[in-house]
């Protein structure tokens, strides 16, 4: 497996784009999940035909949008799977 992982550019905000989220997330978010190492902002994003969950990293200015199938797939991954992702890309 390659050590270098390309940024998911199709999902990234444009350079200079500032993402604004309402302070009161309501049912759609955003939810801030943070610990002393990093913080991310999670919200639901409506598309014309469905919904995705967006995970935005203010630190890296990256984001991904997962649909239900992708999230379902994540739900049965072992913690080692995340470890392997961090092994490939531990820091920007």
């Amino acid at each position, binding site marked *: 497996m390659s*050590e*270098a992982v390309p940024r998911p550019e199709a999902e990234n905000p444009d350079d200079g784009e500032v993402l604004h989220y309402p302070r009161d997330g309501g049912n759609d978010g955003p939810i801030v999940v943070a*610990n*002393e*190492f*990093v913080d991310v902002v999670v919200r639901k994003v409506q598309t014309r035909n469905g919904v995705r969950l967006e995970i935005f990293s203010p630190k890296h200015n990256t984001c991904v949008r997962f649909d239900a199938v992708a999230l379902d797939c994540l739900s049965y991954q072992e*913690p080692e799977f*995340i*470890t392997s992702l*961090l*092994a*490939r*890309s*531990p*820091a920007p």
Partner: protein
Amino acid sequence: MATDSAGTRTEAGLEGIRDGIAQGRFPAHVFNDREIFDTEQRRVFSKAWCFLAHESEIPNRGDYVTRYIADNNLIVARAESGEIHASLNMCRHRGNMMCKSEMGNASHFRCSYHGWVYKNSGELVGVPYMKEGYGGRIDKRDWGLVKVRTDTYAGLVFGTLDPDAPTLEEYLGGFQFYLDLYLKQGSSGSEVHGPPDHWVTETDWKIAAENFSGDGYHTPVAHQFGFNLGYFASSGSTHSQGWAASIPGKGHGIGLGHTPGFPPFAGFPEELAEEMRSSLSPEQVEVFSQTRTAVGTVFPNLSFLMQPFSIVPGEAGVRFVTMRLYHPIGPGRTEMYSWCLVPKDASDEYKQEAYRAYTLAFAQAGTFEQDDLENWARVTRSAGSTMARNIEFPYVMGMDSTPDPDFPGPGHVVTPYVNDSNFRNLWSRWSEYMTGRV
């Protein structure tokens, strides 16, 4: 004597201290002395089983707290597998502190300097620019966080830096019988009620450890307001009653104060007392049901106290438990950690009441705590003075006591409660470590 002609502590000086304890004497200077402190770091805290955390502080996967053994900052974390690991809080790359927060939740720790990433169990998993920078010259398996040996008893997580230390069970040596009063309140055991109160104080850890290994003698004096105002269910005329129990050769000791006519398990909610009658052994029930105050120390620096304390003076007392760790940070300086332990199964109302009683008496600004620290800080200051270098204290109370043959608990158990027996055992064990016998 503890000093040679040059005023320097020597091995012979430490041997002299050890001999003095057997004769009921202990020198003042040990309570505020740079060389004693440095020797303790190497010979006591680097060898003994030291308390790290209560399991209920890290109940979920990824939970961690940072604690110390000697001057080593450790991460105590519950891994994704559910196991508890203790690791030196120091990146193996250039030594940066991994976790700056004292508590948190993380599946992985990422160094803020060069970005090395470790699993919360301590294994190195991520190295930035691994291929470009290291070209295969680093094997991640060789560079995990430095592990510390751990073991648990009834929710207490201990660690030791000594790979050759005996098992924790052997180290506790039967003191578990008494610890159960604090740790097995009710059939589901005890849990911490929030994070610890945590502060730095100008006292030596040994003064606190000794006091909590069963100093019933100071209570009617230092805490006299507690008697006089009706916060505390004892009186000067009966306060000497009870037992001093210690585990010979291990250093652990507990004072068990008894008040005549005190109802069995007074201060506990009735349903909790019923649970304890069935979940504890008959011998433990016999001892604990008639115990008003239980104040004990696990060698070297972990202590507990349980007693009923009236939130409103004159009203019935509420049982609370404080668990405290006296972490030495310098000669005569201690980082205090104080938790409130509550029965896991108890009602929220009782937990809140117990926490209020604890806060009133023994949290950082607690009344009993203030009484003690006021005295301990002055003892510490005196102990560091030049004239104190050759002064000794008497530890002769109860030297002629014979063990109570009818007492159902283990160890060396004597009456009355007011006794130096536990302290001689504590300092005897300390001197075994200090002279390199352990």
